[in-house]
């Protein structure tokens, strides 16, 4: 810091003398000897800033960018720590999504037979499960991002958006493992590799932005009302059942002619359904573009931007309150 500041402040300061205070040793201290004005003026004269104030949005973005290495390191560390005590170790990264898919196949494919009329049901189902799980676990992790890391929030100073974003990144890494498993499944059931598989990348990017926005919204809600995390599993499960994870929205709409058109539109505008169908379109050759809702890329981008940017601003607005209580 510059020493110049110190020499340019000749005004004598009112101070509490030690002797004054020791006289009131056994009684609560009287009002401080220096008033509000003096201290605030002193702070201003030396360019001191209020501790813990919320930085303006551009500054906040800059701080967040400066912490990008922490975001990735934290996500990777969490992911590694997750299975570090298991004997099979990181094999579980791939095993867990595969087992999940097997359970859903057993229930919905074998027992309930929702596979009727759906071509390539196994990849159809597995893609749906993996893509939805990405959103689902990002939101769950986001809900606990602040409340579950309260120690970190109270110990260190960093833009708090680091936490929900980092948790989403962890889920993205998890999704990449799942996608590796999915490629194995696709090849096993005879879906040919195609250039359209590359479309999976923009889908994941858009979905990641959407998830990060959702996670930030939920992080703020969860930080102030921890009860939300008890409620979320039910909301998320309902969401999963209406998102066409294990059945085809397209089939449902074409089968039920009496269904009001707004309901069909609503089912198709559901962001989870949009990302799931885009991913199926990218990966499965029998899933045609005709099964996609109109303007699907526009809708996918719109959701990502709306929730991503909106969620970020919503989260930032309460930045200084995280960790209270």
């Amino acid at each position, binding site marked *: 810091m510059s020493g110049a500041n110190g020499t340019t402040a000749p005004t004598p300061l009112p101070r509490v003398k030690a002797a004054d205070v*020791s006289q009131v040793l056994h009684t*609560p201290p009287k009002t401080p000897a220096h008033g509000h004005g003096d201290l605030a003026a002193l702070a201003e004269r030396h*360019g001191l800033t209020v*501790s813990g104030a919320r930085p303006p949005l551009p500054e906040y973005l800059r701080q967040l960018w400066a912490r990008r290495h922490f975001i990735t390191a934290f996500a990777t560390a969490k992911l590694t*720590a997750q299975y*570090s005590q298991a004997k099979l170790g990181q094999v579980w990264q791939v095993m867990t999504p595969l087992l999940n898919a097997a359970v859903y196949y057993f229930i919905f494919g074998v027992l309930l037979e929702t596979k009727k009329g759906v071509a390539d049901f196994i990849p159809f189902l597995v893609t749906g499960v993996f893509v939805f799980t990405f959103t689902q676990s990002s939101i769950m992790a986001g809900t606990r991002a602040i409340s579950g890391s309260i120690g970190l929030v109270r110990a260190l100073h960093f833009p708090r958006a680091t936490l929900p974003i980092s948790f989403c990144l962890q889920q993205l890494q998890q999704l990449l493992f799942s996608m590796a498993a999915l490629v194995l499944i696709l090849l096993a059931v005879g879906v040919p590799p195609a250039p359209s598989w590359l479309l999976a990348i923009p889908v994941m990017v858009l979905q990641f932005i959407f998830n990060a926005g959702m996670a930030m919204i939920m992080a703020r809600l969860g930080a102030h009302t921890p009860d939300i995390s008890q409620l979320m599993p039910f909301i998320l499960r309902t969401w999963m059942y209406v998102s066409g994870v294990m059945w085809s929205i397209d089939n449902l709409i074409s089968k039920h002619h009496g269904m009001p058109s707004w309901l069909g539109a609503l089912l198709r505008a559901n962001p989870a359904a949009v990302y799931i169908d885009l991913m199926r379109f990218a990966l499965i050759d029998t899933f045609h573009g005709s099964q996609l809702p109109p303007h699907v890329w526009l809708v996918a981008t719109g959701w990502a931007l709306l929730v991503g940017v909106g969620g970020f601003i919503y989260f930032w607005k309460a930045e200084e309150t995280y960790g209270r209580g």
Partner: protein
Amino acid sequence: MADNANTSDTATRTALTEPVDERIPTVIADSVDIVYRINGTGAGRGSATAALNRILRPKQAEKASGTRIVHAVKKVSFVAYKGEAVGLIGTNGSGKSTLLKGIAGLQPVENGKIYTDGQPSLLGVNAALMGDLTGERNVYLGGLAMGMTREQIKERYQEIVDFSGINEKGDFISLPMRTYSSGMGSRLRFSIAAAKDHDVLLIDEALSTGDARFQARSAERIQEMREHAGTVFLVSHSNAAIRTTCERVLWLERGELRMDGPTEEVLEAYEEFTSGKAKK
């Protein structure tokens, strides 16, 4: 530089008895109140009817069963200057750590304001560390959490490991941190936290960790940081640690600032206060 030497010189000599104008303030607390709100502490905490009541009549039920308010810091004002080491003392639960968090900007203040020069850092990196990861990865994680860059950490890595003394008894740095003894763990945590240069450094009881040799080393490191940094705040129950490190002491009791003055003066009064309590 000459100005700097002058400041710390006058600080050690007179501390608070005379107004010394040329000193540069780094932390200003202006009648600060800090309040904790704790959910679900009331009598009917667990019961469903109480919870339902809380939802239906939030205002009315808040006092009865819901939120309790703990007024941890009351109307505290002080000015800390560059080059000062300020001790914070007080009996358990007197609000020392809370005040420290307030200065760090980690605990929102209810009333009043805390002004700081730059970003004060709490020497508390442990929350970012993960027991399942190796010591080595934790050094990186902790450093990044404090806002260091990868290059800075790489540069200081050996220094951190050597300082912690973790590898003195074998290659422990490549083992998960959960396998460390508690002393080893806290030594590594302190070493990571101390690796960064801070403008205003806040230390909460850190000196009590580790064996005697490590304590001496950390006291030395704090002295060093104080020369680099502006101001050091130290919360400790060890009066010896306060005496060797600080020339000024703030005494908090029940959240109120009881006394603010040169170390010896305040500690004498504090020791009298605590021993008087013991006799009773």
